[in-house]
């Protein structure tokens, strides 16, 4: 692996193994997330996608092996809050909004823990521009928001932390089809601000709509990878994940 090719990738994961006790959830996973891209990991339930994501972001209590590097720096073994400081933020499954805090407070809090706490005003304003609904409901308690609004807030939180990479765990989970559409468009918009995105999705259709590069996981291993365009036309993928019977 030459140094030159490395600078094209924000996040490089090599030989990741995740074990919960005797159970291996991820086996020898290798991932490269290109700068500025939207990279998706798809696969069936239990394939190990979430474990991979959480392990990479330091948010997992399990036995973790392998080399993870972010922007050229090794982050293997670092805990979640340190990784945020290094420029990678996780939007966890289920949003995990701080219920008793208002929308505004949630954003300020995320900015405080992020890399640019002195630019809170600008960053928060940008989030309100991206998601006007949040601006309207600035003083609403996080726990009172709808699922879609919470997802938007979760994205907003990630943005105000001024990261280079945002990792998303099942962003479409539990949302109505219209919301899913909107969320996917939002992810595209965030990507267009220059951020690199790695996301995990069970809803392969949605993932393919916005991803540049796709990894396919099955039973803990990465079994296939390629550009979204290529994989979309792969008959096996089409059948297994996209529900397309006769892919020509």
């Amino acid at each position: 692996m030459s140094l030159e090719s490395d600078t094209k990738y924000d996040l490089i994961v090599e030989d990741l193994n995740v074990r919960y006790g005797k159970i291996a959830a991820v086996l020898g996973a290798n991932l490269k997330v290109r700068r500025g891209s939207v990279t998706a990991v798809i696969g069936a339930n239990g394939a190990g996608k979430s474990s991979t994501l959480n392990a990479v972001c330091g948010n997992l209590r399990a036995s973790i092996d392998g080399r993870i590097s972010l922007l050229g720096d090794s982050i293997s073994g670092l805990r979640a809050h340190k990784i945020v400081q290094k420029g990678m933020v996780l939007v966890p499954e289920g949003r995990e909004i701080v219920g008793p805090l208002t929308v505004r407070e949630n954003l300020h809090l995320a900015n405080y823990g992020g890399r640019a706490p002195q630019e809170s005003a600008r960053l928060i304003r940008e989030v309100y521009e991206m998601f006007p609904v949040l601006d309207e409901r600035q003083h609403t308690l996080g726990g009172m928001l709808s699922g879609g609004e919470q997802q938007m807030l979760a994205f907003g939180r990630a943005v105000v932390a001024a990261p280079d990479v945002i990792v998303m765990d099942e962003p479409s989970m539990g949302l109505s089809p219209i919301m899913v559409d909107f969320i996917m468009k939002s992810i595209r918009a965030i990507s267009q601000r220059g951020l690199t995105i790695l996301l995990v999705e069970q809803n392969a259709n949605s993932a393919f709509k916005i991803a540049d590069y796709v990894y396919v996981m099955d039973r803990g291993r990465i079994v296939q990878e390629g550009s979204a365009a290529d994989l979309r036309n792969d008959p096996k993928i089409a059948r297994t994940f996209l529900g397309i019977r006769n892919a020509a």
Partner: protein
Amino acid sequence: MLYEQLIINAAVLGAVFTLFALGLSLTWGALDVLNLAHGATFVTSAWVATSVYSAYELPLASAMLVGILTGGMIGVVADLVAFKPIRLLITNKRQAELSMVAATIGMGFVLDRIIGRATLDQVFSFPARAFPYKDFHIFGARISNIEIIILVLTFLCAVLLNLWISRSRQGMAIRAIAYSAKIPPLLGIHVDRMSAATMAIGGMLAGLSGTLMTVWVSGMAVSTGHSFLLKGFAIVVLGGVGSIRGCVLAAFILAFAETGIVAFGAGNLRDLAAFSLIVLILLFRPQGLFGTRSAMRA
């Protein structure tokens, strides 16, 4: 005329209770910790203040400051030695809760014995000349300068704490931690650091309460710490865990109830007030006056 005096006494007692209970409520609300060493921290801070005053002939305020900082230090040490490793090692929430309580019991034992030995289990205080007591007469009642100081300091602390928790970024971080220990790291918040800071503040409040109490009643002992601990819990439960407003209100309610009971005859039923309060509140309104089921509010 007697009533005014009682009210003043009750109010000052309430103020001292408030400072003590605020520290307890803060750590319980934010860190899910029943700090059974809070009473020992209270006494130890007072003892350090009196010792330092006598040994180094410092001005009283400086000695008290040393006492307060000692309280803060005890809190930080407790966090480093017990709570941080428990957070790291014990994943089961109920187990962690029990372990943290047990750890504070252990620390309380150690502090109690050390101070008990140092004071030979006697009452200790600042020497009489240490503080220039001066009485004022207001509305026919007598109030001393120390009592005024206590009331003012308590008011300031409560207001500042409230502002800090509700407006500052650290306050938001603490409220987030009180809600869930999993989310803050994802936001880049250093939970260990915030936990140590919270314990430090709680400890300092205990120290402030202890040193002021020692000056006010000219006497403090290891047993006072036990008594305060039990009352502190009654207050936190009554006020609602994590609610500053509730804590203050509850502290004064207890102080007035106790003063009233002692004044109107049944002196040895005084402690009954605290326990009955705990049981009644827990039965009918476990969240207390202002508490919510989950997180910390200002």
